[in-house]
């Protein structure tokens, strides 16, 4: 997704409706509180995070070997393994599999990787119809919008808006917004889809190198419904989704949903190991920038991410700006450290869309130092020349002033004088601070001046 969009502008638009911002913030804060409750119920939660972090560090340190082990085991199990260097290759592989089987319609369960690769758009352009079967995904698909959250794709939509969409697309009564009725409607609509689609694509939450199996976590059972009824099952996974052994699932499955929604575990944690008789099972291992990120020492451990979304739910900026303000498939703090790796120019704004409060780092179940990486991305982006040019001039002036005690004292004096005698020079629309906030009241002297008078040597 390339464009001139930036987070500050998009957030400003989102904030035109303050009631909506309050509602969005409260909704996600409620999820964060559910997460807190669930994590506090586990005595060794912090130990579990540390363990998960170390397992993932081990995977990243030996990723090539684990990938080859996984490939060999999966092939032994009868799964066809494909490798995709980037999004384009991934999309082509999916299309080739469908073409070979003469399939024009596919059902897809939640996969952020396919969002990252813009698979739906690609297949649509080639005359293949894709229906997302996760309820939230289906809703944003009907609205022709990208998901705004990796776990809660339509969290930005109110039930009345979903009712309107269902009225237009699924024939519900006008004005009907009862969640039970809407869900039942979606259920019947999707049941028909599951029964008629010959191909199903799923994401992958964890792939086990030891056994060549993969695990897909859903709350709706939609991945299973799709995969079990289809002749062709395609699973798309980022290469970082590996874990060494099956027993490690005991760590990650405990962490994933507690972090995401506060549930002890997803309703369905489905293991796929081999195709059933007569079924084709494919797995596509996708790089799409991941090995580049692996080669960046400061940012490599962002690949530990298990896509729980906890950093979004806790982020005070995300909660008040909405997922679409990040103009990338993966929003929020984690998206802001992943996206610049894919395109430093288009996503130069994202590492700056944070106050560096650090809450994201604390909730991360695999202990990614998210806010530390946001700080480091800022340095890289400026160094590579993708920073805000207007800011650069100001920064130079600031540096001259602050590196010189006499200039600093003079500037301070001038600033205080202006605030006192010529406040109109700063209290105007040119000053973004002043739009909603008063300037500090100027004191008579600086501390340094006070000190010289009151503590003479």
């Amino acid at each position: 997704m390339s464009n001139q969009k930036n987070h500050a502008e998009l957030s400003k638009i989102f904030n035109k409706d303050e009631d909506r911002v309050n509602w969005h913030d409260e909704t996600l804060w409620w999820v964060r509180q559910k997460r807190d409750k669930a994590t506090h119920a586990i005595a060794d939660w912090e130990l579990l995070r540390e363990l998960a972090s170390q397992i993932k560090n081990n995977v990243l340190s030996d990723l090539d070997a684990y990938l080859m082990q996984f490939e060999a085991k999966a092939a032994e199990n009868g799964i066809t393994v494909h490798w995709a260097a980037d999004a384009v290759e991934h999309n082509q592989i999916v299309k080739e599999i469908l073409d070979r089987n003469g399939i024009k319609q596919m059902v897809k369960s939640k996969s952020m990787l396919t969002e990252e690769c813009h698979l739906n758009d690609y297949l649509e352009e080639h005359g293949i119809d894709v229906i997302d079967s996760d309820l939230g995904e289906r809703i944003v698909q009907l609205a022709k919008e990208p998901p705004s959250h990796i776990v809660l794709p339509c969290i930005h939509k109110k039930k009345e808006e979903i009712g309107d969409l269902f009225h237009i697309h699924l024939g519900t009564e006008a004005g009907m917004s009862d969640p039970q009725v809407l869900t039942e409607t979606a259920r019947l609509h999707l049941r028909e889809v599951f029964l008629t689609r010959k191909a199903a694509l799923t994401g992958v939450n964890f792939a086990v190198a030891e056994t060549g199996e993969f695990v897909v976590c859903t709350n709706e059972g939609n991945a299973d419904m799709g995969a079990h009824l289809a002749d062709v099952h395609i699973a798309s996974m980022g290469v970082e989704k590996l874990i060494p052994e099956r027993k490690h699932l005991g760590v990650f499955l405990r962490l994933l949903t507690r972090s995401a929604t506060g549930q002890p575990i997803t309703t369905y944690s489905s293991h796929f190991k081999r195709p059933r008789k007569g079924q084709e099972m494919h797995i596509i291992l996708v790089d799409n920038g991941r090995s580049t990120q692996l080669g960046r020492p400061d940012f490599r451990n962002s690949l530990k991410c298990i896509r729980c979304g906890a950093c979004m739910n806790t982020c005070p900026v995300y909660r008040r700006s909405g997922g679409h303000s990040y103009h990338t498939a993966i929003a929020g703090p984690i998206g802001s450290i992943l996206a610049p790796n894919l395109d430093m120019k288009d996503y130069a704004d994202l590492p700056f869309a944070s106050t560096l409060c650090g809450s994201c780092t604390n909730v991360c179940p695999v202990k990614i130092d998210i806010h530390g990486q946001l700080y480091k991305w800022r340095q890289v982006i400026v160094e590579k020349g993708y920073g805000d040019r207007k800011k650069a001039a100001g920064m130079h002036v600031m540096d001259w002033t602050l590196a010189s005690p006499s200039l600093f004292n003079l500037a301070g004096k001038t600033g205080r004088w202006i605030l006192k005698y010529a406040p109109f020079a700063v209290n105007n629309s040119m000053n973004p601070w002043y739009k909603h906030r008063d300037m500090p009241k100027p004191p008579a002297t600086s501390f340094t001046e006070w000190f010289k008078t009151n503590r003479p040597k």
Partner: protein
Amino acid sequence: MTVALFVPCYINQFYPNAAIATLQLLEKLGVNVEYPLNQTCCGQPMANSGYENLAEGCSKLFTDNFEGYDYIVSPSGSCALHIKEHLHPSDSPDATKKIRKSIYELSEFLTDILKVEQLNAVFPHRVGLHQSCHGQRGLKLSQMTELTAPPFSKPEKLLKMVKGIELVELSRKDECCGFGGTFCVTEEAISVKMGKDRISDHISHQAAYITSPDMSCLMPMEGLLNRQDSAVKVLHIAEILNSR
């Protein structure tokens, strides 16, 4: 005991009372305070904007001013954290290393080094404590709600020593105020919204004052409060600990 006082640039220029209170409080507790007169800034405004390279001048000046002290105390968790994590002038690595170890935010210096157990302060008002993120999550001045770990709070421990004070419970104990350095102007809409939400948490719990170990969080909150003609005031924690 001799300590060097580091007064952040914006406190020096706009909130001298916070620095005066810090100085007087330390002196009251028997500390010999030295104030290097040529100090300016820790360099954080540039570094957080991605211009760590431009903060070199500040870093060097900081090192020249504070080299050799065993304790450097600052009434700002955010600036202290920046020195601890990011001070790195190229030509004097040993001095830098020592400074990074010697820098303390005021409340942690009082609880951990001076081991203050009582204060002669009186402040008979309802007060909301704003947990500033850099002090809290960076310097670990208090336990964070995200973690499953025993609660503690150095600033709160000190505030509870003040006679007459009534600390209010907040709905969101440790949510960010939205300042974030240049974020407060580059992301003005979100920054303002975060600040508004923070002050309304304090106001709805009938706080008469909002305090914090970081004036930089209180500054935008004060700007919003004044714009709303609110009677609620902000005070740096040193001003409350030093009150009588």
